[in-house]
């Protein structure tokens, strides 16, 4: 291979709408917001020339220049802190973590600075902190986490995790326009999944933060989930339909603030709730949702609330171990059948 010349690289502006993958949808969303609002800028590791480890910011540098697409040193604390400072000055940073696992290095800045500014002195921070999360691709203990539960117990941070291309675009736009800090988690398994390719509207649209979506309507039981597990839930629902079970799937989309109304409406309709998430079971968001249901829909329940989640271990690398660790379709089916028969 001749190593002397590298192919000239130029990434095109994404189309406005059209058929898009999940990753393309996020890229469109950021791009359009940068066009619409000169205060929006991108900051993170390798987001410029390289276009981000997963190419979410591909082409932005050519279009918007180094002033608004900022490659940083490997300093997550500085990325978060500087994003906060710039936001105080009226800018709207969209900060990337190369993998969401590295959000831990910015934890202090997020939970102590970003989360508490408005409450302490009325200074809202219009910031977005985004990055690839999730397991199932054999990336091991440090490139697989689902970080939502680390932050659920920190009032002041909104948490968003879409599961469709349409929502990904609409929610990233909403996050960028939001006056408060938003953590935006993108399951890496979804980025290029052919199944998620869909036609997006040409016109500008946002998806409201704080609103869940009924991914599938049903009467017999509710699977409440988000992110990549929405697909598992839909697969389970399709299979259970053949067994005569009519499953409703709620895609939370926003994890904080939680759309309690959507959860309760569904559970009051079906009287049975299965909570599904990919992070470890103990201390996961499932516990919170179960409590909400117990507190506010107890009389409507016909069965115990069931959680299906990862086991309480780090995410292991080897495929058989990772499979054991993660919730599988079969687990959802088993749990749903037991719940239905209860």
């Amino acid at each position: 291979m001749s190593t002397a010349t590298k192919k000239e690289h130029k990434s095109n502006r994404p189309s406005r709408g059209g058929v898009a993958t999940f990753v393309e949808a996020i890229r469109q969303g950021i791009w359009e917001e940068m066009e619409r609002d000169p205060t929006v800028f991108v900051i993170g590791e390798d987001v410029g020339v390289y276009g981000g480890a997963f190419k979410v910011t591909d082409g932005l540098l050519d279009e918007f220049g180094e002033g608004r697409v900022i490659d940083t040193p490997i300093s997550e604390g500085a990325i978060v802190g500087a994003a906060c400072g710039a936001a105080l000055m009226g800018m709207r940073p969209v900060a990337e973590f190369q993998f969401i696992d590295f959000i831990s290095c910015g934890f202090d800045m997020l939970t102590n600075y970003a989360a508490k500014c408005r409450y302490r002195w009325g200074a809202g921070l219009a910031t977005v902190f985004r990055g690839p999360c999730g397991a199932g691709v054999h990336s091991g203990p440090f490139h697989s986490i689902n970080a939502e539960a680390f932050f659920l117990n920190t009032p002041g941070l909104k948490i968003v995790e879409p599961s469709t291309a349409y929502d990904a675009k609409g929610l990233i736009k909403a996050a960028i326009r939001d006056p408060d800090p938003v953590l935006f988690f993108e399951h890496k398994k979804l980025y290029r999944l052919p199944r998620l390719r869909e036609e997006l509207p040409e016109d500008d649209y946002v998806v409201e933060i704080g609103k869940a979506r009924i991914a599938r309507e049903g009467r017999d039981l509710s699977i409440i989930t988000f992110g990549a597990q929405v697909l598992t839930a839909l697969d389970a629902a399709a299979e259970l339909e053949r067994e005569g079970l009519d499953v409703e799937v709620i895609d939370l989309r926003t994890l904080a603030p939680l759309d309690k109304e959507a959860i309760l409406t569904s559970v009051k309709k079906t009287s049975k709730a299965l909570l599904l998430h990919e992070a470890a079971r103990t201390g996961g968001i499932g516990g919170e949702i179960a409590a909400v249901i117990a507190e506010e829909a107890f009389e409507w329940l016909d069965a115990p609330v069931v959680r299906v989640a990862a086991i309480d271990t780090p995410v292991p690398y080897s495929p058989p171990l990772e499979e054991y660790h993660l919730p599988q379709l079969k687990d959802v089916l088993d749990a749903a059948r037991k719940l239905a028969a209860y």
Partner: protein
Amino acid sequence: MKKETQRKSASSAGLAKKRRGADGDGNNNGGPLNVAGELVCTTETTLTDAQMLELYRYLKLTRMVEERLVNLYRQTKIVGGVFRSLGQEATAVGTCYALEPQDFISPLIRDLGAVLVKGIRPREIFAQYMAKAWGPSEGRDLNIHFGDMSKGFIGPISHLGDMIPVMTGIALGARMQHKNLVAVAYIGDGGMSTGAFHEGLNFAAVQRLPVIIIAEHNWYAYSTPTSKQTAVKDLADKAAGYGIPGHIVDGNDVIACYEVTKKAAEFARGGGGAVLIEAKTYRRKGHAEHDDQRYLPSGELDEWERKDPIDRYERHLISQNVATREKLNEIMADVQREIDEDVEWAESSPMPEPEKAAYGVFDNSIAPPALRPKIFGGN
């Protein structure tokens, strides 16, 4: 003042010319030349001929293990990423070879050479990459993410910089136990920008702990050039901020890497405290196998290919009459044999039993394993 003298001693061991960019600036010959005018290695060394040949073996072993890993990856026998140290093997091998058996290292992903010098066998590496049950982490973690206390090897985690405080703690613990050892932490030009790096090294410096930082300056952190990582001229300049000596060494000269580390270890062991060594080298492959290196200026790779540390060392060994080409070929054949054997061993390992995932989060004689819970708590 101390820093200056330290640098001088590094210089006699093959100090690289200072430079700002990794692109060609006419200093390809910034090192000793043989009679044919080709780049070789420093001749000022205490290494015996036998040691020099052993160094050669480790260099070849490192490169050939990695080449085999790439093959296995392409055959989809490795499901995680493969990270190459092509072109910078001399840094890991030369620096680690200068250590005593009781010393500890924490390498980075591109320091396979140091791991091998510490006595980890290729079979462990292959089994680990292939996620096999016989791998040292039994399939739980990737690549060199494991450890072997008996060999002084503390595997890294992915989070860059985190191993600097940990290695400071190794040195601290050892001192409390009156053990005379040095703790060597490898870090990249990128990893040096982390908060953990700063906190760890600062602590080591104020405690005058025998911690040696090997700052591998390979000019890129993923796609990010050093100029976007730090405003200092040389990474060794950072040492001043911690009040410790900083050295610069030609990271592609395996003998120079050995010599500078040897001296630093003596200094640290003798109570001098922490030391920072900047090894100037170059990452010739992308960050990982998938990286198309679109960000490289043209010509840069060619220049560094000419400075290949193994070719250079071969020329050195031959022109110094340490070995003949035949002897080097013999060593290579021996390495090949070891690799073939070890790959075969690793391939014969089963994959881990799924349920093993649940074990070992805690001491399971006290806390039960995290087995899958039964739905409805028991039925």
